[in-house]
């Protein structure tokens, strides 16, 4: 049984339909990458899984249990943590408080604690008392990842980690992923950078206009096929 799966997932913003029957599966210990252009529905998929958007109950299953209709706090308590697009640190909270709030709804003991998050991102320890928003973009992204890890999630959802960051900073951030995988978390990353996605993922889904257009292992997919699935067959 897959750890997390979506079945014919549909999602709407009022009258606008953003997802048209998306099927994605994540096995335990796996890292998935979801790629696609702007507006393909990647973030909507993340928001649906994390409970920010409410869907049909059976459209999303976690260990076989329907969670599509659960709200974000309940999904989070089950062990699905999200690093939201744009990082979304709390400006009134210090770096350390931003990390601590990550375990508010799920204080499960495990690999991750303040200490181990600081070991993963040592720069955060130096800046622990700064307001979260006083940090550079890359450091803020580290706080956002650390915040999600603090709940010792079974599934870590990462939405557009590289948005607005310099390539060298993106490399630093992805350098943390082997340690996160080793801790036992299964990972879903949404990424616009196909090269980066193919490097870290066990499997890759390509989305366009609210549908999955291609999926498979990076070794089985060639760039041309991804390109077609990413931009549409004619381009």
């Amino acid at each position, binding site marked *: 049984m897959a750890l997390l799966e979506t079945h014919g997932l549909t999602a709407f913003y009022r009258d606008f339909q953003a997802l048209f029957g998306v099927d994605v599966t994540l096995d335990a210990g796996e890292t998935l990458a979801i790629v696609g252009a702007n507006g393909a529905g990647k973030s909507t998929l993340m928001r649906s899984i994390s409970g920010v958007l409410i869907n049909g109950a059976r459209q999303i299953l976690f260990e076989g249990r329907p969670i599509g209709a659960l709200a*974000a706090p309940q999904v989070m308590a089950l062990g699905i943590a999200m690093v939201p697009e744009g990082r979304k640190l709390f400006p009134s909270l210090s770096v350390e408080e931003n990390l601590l*709030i990550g375990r508010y709804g799920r204080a499960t003991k495990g690999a991750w604690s303040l200490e181990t998050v600081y070991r993963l991102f040592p720069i955060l320890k130096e800046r622990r008392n700064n307001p979260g928003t006083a940090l550079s973009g890359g450091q803020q992204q580290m706080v956002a990842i650390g915040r999600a890890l603090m709940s010792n999630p079974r599934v870590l959802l990462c939405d557009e980690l590289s948005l607005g960051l310099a390539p060298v900073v993106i490399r630093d951030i992805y350098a943390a992923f082997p340690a996160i995988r080793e801790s036992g978390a299964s990972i879903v990353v949404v990424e616009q950078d196909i090269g980066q996605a193919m490097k870290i993922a066990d499997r890759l889904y390509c989305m366009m206009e609210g549908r999955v257009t291609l999926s498979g292992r990076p070794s089985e997919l060639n760039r041309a096929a991804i390109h077609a699935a990413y931009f549409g067959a004619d381009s």
Partner: protein
Amino acid sequence: MNWADTILQGVLLGGLYALFAAGLSLVFGIMRLVNLAHGDLIVLAAYLILVLVDTLNLNPFIALVIAMPIMFGVGWLLQTYVLNRTLGPDILPPLLVTFGLSVVLQNGLLQVYSADSRRIPSGYLDTASISIGSLHVGVMPLLTFFSAVAVILILNRLLYATELGRAFRATSDDAVTAGLMGIQPNRTFAIATGIAMAIVAVAALYLGTRSNFDPTIGPARLIYAFEAVIMGGLGSLWGTLVGGIILGMAQTIGGAINPEWQILAGHIAFVLVLLFRPRGFFPRAVD
């Protein structure tokens, strides 16, 4: 006019206004909700304490200990079943609903307790005073002031040194992302309003023991509370104390010059502060 005495009385009166305002400031800071029934809820709590004192023959401070959890419950229920439904991108619904609540509370209290003005008896404390040099200071005004300082100290500690306080601030920053952390904004809001109402009970004790009250005086207390919050700077609790003190001093000094000027002097001080420091004295850096 004895300046030292006037200023001291003004500062102590400011403590009362800070108590009126602390709950308002807390609720506004966390959920951007302006509760127009805040003053009437203070009056409601004053009647609650009065009833406890009258029927059970309690010391008013013991009655307060009973009234605080009751008022916490009132705030929790009010937020859960009424105010949470009004919160959203539009600021008008909570204003209309709390305005309506204000009217309902005033008229409900009038029905039950009539328009007669009442006072909570506090025994010998009514007239007790201590001497500081040449000044005589009432024990009740002193207690009021130190209660205000204690309330603000405790609130600050709650906000900045507890997990619940972190959740309050995170929800205030961004309720959607707070949900991703496992925080249920509606539940957090209910606790915040509960705490605000427990503080309202403290304010009600001093309102009711220091002067007469009747069902219609709520809105004027709301104005004082507002002025204290705005002068102090939105979101800062110590600022609220400072705002209360400025208001109290302005009123006492105005009253010492001419008793007719007491209320007006407070409002003039408020307008002057708005004119020169439109964001108040300690505005929150992030807003």
